């Protein structure tokens, strides 16, 4: 989907605010779902994921002059959203521990109600963070290796090997 939108010219250094607004609107439309899904893959909670993605876009907006390049923006928003989602997850866990409550939200979510989905999420959660990120990004919007390597700013070979390792481990756990 995002391939339809061409890279904006990098020579627009001193663009006027209106032009920047228009560019940001384009980025928002093409990357908002991606950011939301990344956040959801960590949090497994729709409202929380939307909040985190929203915060990430607010941050990106403040630094948009440095992130006008399309690929750079997408990679930046993915990594930022992932980090912020992890932070939110940690604070949620701390809060739950403090209140001595059992976290019921993820299991009550319709997306994980399905037993198979619950298994898959569990397998994803057990993966090391580097492998988990590759699996998630490869599973979102049908990203191929090249796109994932661009988003994570790692070589394509690394993505390939991480994806292979992740799938092997998941298959073991799921079988």
């Amino acid at each position, binding site marked *: 989907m995002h391939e339809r939108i061409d890279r904006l010219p990098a020579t627009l250094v001193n663009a006027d605010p209106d032009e920047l607004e228009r560019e940001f609107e384009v980025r*928002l439309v093409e990357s908002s779902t991606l950011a939301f899904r990344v956040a*959801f893959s960590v949090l497994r909670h729709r409202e929380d994921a939307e909040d985190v993605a*929203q915060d990430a876009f607010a941050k990106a907006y403040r630094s948009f002059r440095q992130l006008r390049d399309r690929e750079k923006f997408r990679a930046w928003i993915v990594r930022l959203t992932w980090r912020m989602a992890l932070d939110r997850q940690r604070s949620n866990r701390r809060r739950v521990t403090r209140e001595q409550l059992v976290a019921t939200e993820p299991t009550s979510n319709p997306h994980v109600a399905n037993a198979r989905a619950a298994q898959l999420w569990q397998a994803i959660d057990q993966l090391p963070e580097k492998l988990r990120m590759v699996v998630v990004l490869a599973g979102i919007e049908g990203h191929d290796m090249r796109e994932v390597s661009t988003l994570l700013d790692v070589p394509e070979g690394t993505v390939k090997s991480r994806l292979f390792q992740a799938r092997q481990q998941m298959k073991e756990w799921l079988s």
Partner: protein
Amino acid sequence: MTRREDRVDDTALGSELESLLSVEPSADFQARVRARLANERVSGGGAGWWGRTGWQTRWQVAFALVAGIVLVVAVFRLGHQTREEQARIAPPVRQQSIPPAPVADGHTATPQAVPPAPPAAGDRRTRLHLSAGAPIQVAVAAVPATRDPFSDVLVSAREVKALRQIAAMLSPDEKSEVPRPVAPTEISELVIAPITVAPIQLRPIEGEAE
């Protein structure tokens, strides 16, 4: 498990993950992000340049401000300290009057204050006005802030006494309490005893054959 089965498994797992992650945000998600950004614009407009800058620039500006404040405070305190030190070493009274020396007829001249000379830039010399019978006025030019505080010590008591003696000697027919210097006594005859030189006697060194 064969490679083909593996690939099938991978494909199945991939499609499962894709369907698992194909969660759509709520319909008003983008609208809420836009509203949030609009709020940012409104609140960020008040912040001005500071609100739009990155954290690195903010740190640099904050550091420069702190350094500037420290520098100004240091300069101010140093200047204040120097002024205090100068005030302690050189008292503000810049004119001293020495009692007049007695003149020949027993009168003393009326002391007349000599106004201090206007301070010249860098002028640190002491000006002495001496005249017979007149009071000795030591007018000191106002000493500006200088590097050497010890030059502010002007005339010592001994020097004042010596000056008074000189002034008394300069006035003719003066009955001064100060004793005049006595003329040196002449030496009439100088007797020097003759110097006698005894010859040196050489003695042979021990063990040396004659």
